């Protein structure tokens, strides 16, 4: 929900998703090529600042979305640094520090590139981009329906919890468990009913087996793609320059 809200509030919501995807891909490619911690750190910072300053994604949102993967990254790094051997038992593997630093910074840069994309692109735009990229229609239809149903069911769930709370359904953990169970059972019925209702609504508007939607129009896509390509090229040049410099 936080990602969704940020994407709609972003200053780049109206920017062509192809442009944002190109820039993110450029950032990921550069992070994959670069090896030096300094370069990787610069890439991560540049990509994060682009989202924060360029697209005006709130710092709090960026951190909240980044925290779970960052926690996972930290845990992975620790398991690399703290190792076990039969002779020494558990010990600190300081020799792995450079490799771990590189891996961590590379992951951070990749994460920043990805967050810059998803925190500025509402899912319908992403679906539209995937449709243009010839992703199988069935997969896209499923994604579109799941996305819509997510909000419909969330609303139904919230209404159910409110109605139960009003009748003391959550007074004490035993009541809470019972109420949650009852609501979960009711949700299954609701899903079935709503699926039937949506099918009927689609048929009323001439549904013939394929969900067809009008793709969103981005009148400045060509110019925005050019800018994104330039930005991506700059990041890639930084990474390639570093690799060439290290090889010389």
């Amino acid at each position, binding site marked *: 929900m936080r990602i969704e809200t940020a994407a709609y509030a972003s200053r780049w919501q109206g920017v062509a998703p192809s442009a944002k995807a190109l820039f993110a891909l450029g950032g990921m490619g550069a992070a994959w090529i670069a090896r030096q911690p300094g370069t990787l750190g610069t890439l991560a910072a540049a990509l994060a600042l682009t989202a924060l300053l360029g697209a005006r994604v709130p710092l709090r949102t960026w951190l909240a979305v980044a925290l779970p993967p960052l926690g996972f990254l930290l845990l992975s790094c620790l398991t690399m640094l703290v190792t076990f051997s039969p002779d020494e038992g558990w010990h600190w593997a300081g020799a792995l520090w450079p490799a771990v630093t590189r891996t961590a910074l590379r992951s951070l840069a990749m994460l920043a590139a990805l967050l810059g994309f998803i925190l500025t692109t509402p899912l319908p735009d992403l679906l539209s981009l995937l449709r243009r990229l010839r992703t199988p229609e069935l997969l896209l239809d499923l994604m579109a329906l799941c996305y819509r149903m997510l909000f419909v069911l969330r609303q139904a769930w919230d209404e159910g919890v409110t109605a139960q709370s009003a009748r003391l359904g959550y007074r004490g953990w035993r009541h809470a468990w019972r109420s949650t169970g009852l609501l979960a059972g009711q949700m299954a019925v609701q899903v079935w009913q709503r699926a039937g209702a949506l099918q009927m609504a689609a048929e009323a508007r001439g549904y*013939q087996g394929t969900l067809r939607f009008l793709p969103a129009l981005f009148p400045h896509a060509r110019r925005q793609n050019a800018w994104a390509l330039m930005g991506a090229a700059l990041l890639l040049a930084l990474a390639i320059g570093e690799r060439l410099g290290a090889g010389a």
Partner: protein
Amino acid sequence: MSAQLEVRGVGHVFADGSPGLRDCSLVLGRGRRHALLGANGAGKTTLLQHLNGLLRPGSGQLLLDGQPYDYGRKGLAQLRRRVGLVFQNPERQLFSAQVEEDVSFGPLNLGLDAAAVRARVAAALDAVGLRDHGRRAVHHLSFGQKKRVCIAGVLAMEPDVLLLDEPMAGLDAPMQDELAALLARLTARGVTILLSTHDIDFAYAWADDIHLMADGRCIASGPAPLLARDAATLQAAGQRQPLALALHAHLVARSVLPAGPGPRSVDALLDALRCVPFTSSGKTPT
């Protein structure tokens, strides 16, 4: 008045054995405003779903422009292009993530090209006052806005007949006024409208014809000013007399207003009262 849609002795029984419609008959005149009134469970929604071809009659038949409904694939596509249905609960009609996408669903199913679809989507959103909301997520809209998106989704198919299942339910007074204005614009364009409602006052003020449903049957049809005076028939359909008519009758009985055709709304009645001059004693002249 030429008949555009006709329901002849239609019966329908649901899968669980409960009757939906029993020998139901009514005629919808072309370009007119029709209100379908009845208590809960009277069969209003079932009838609307029959008119859109979503349900098939177990007995009897439905006719469009004098021709029986064709339930073949092509026939149904043609029927649903001409007869659009707006459901009562928008959450059960909207399945696209974005407003524009959802409104485009029907026209795309008609096989129109992208440019024509875009034009229709823009016109439909314009008609319901949501021109600037095309790129918004459906779940970010209010209930009233969602309802308007539902109507736009059907208007974009440019139907000749628009069926609305309790369109006023859940809308506040200003939104009801906006919807009434939209319906007036559609009627002016020659669209035949049939809406189901529980609100006899709205039906009496708005409709040209009223159809009363009870127990799966259409028990009476007729011009709104005539049918609204028939208290016994209204009662049989679980309806009271329109407030404007009841008030008018009392005021006439007390010689406050002259006898004559009753006003169609309380507002019209107030206008009539304002035209009556006060006497110096504070009483109106008889």
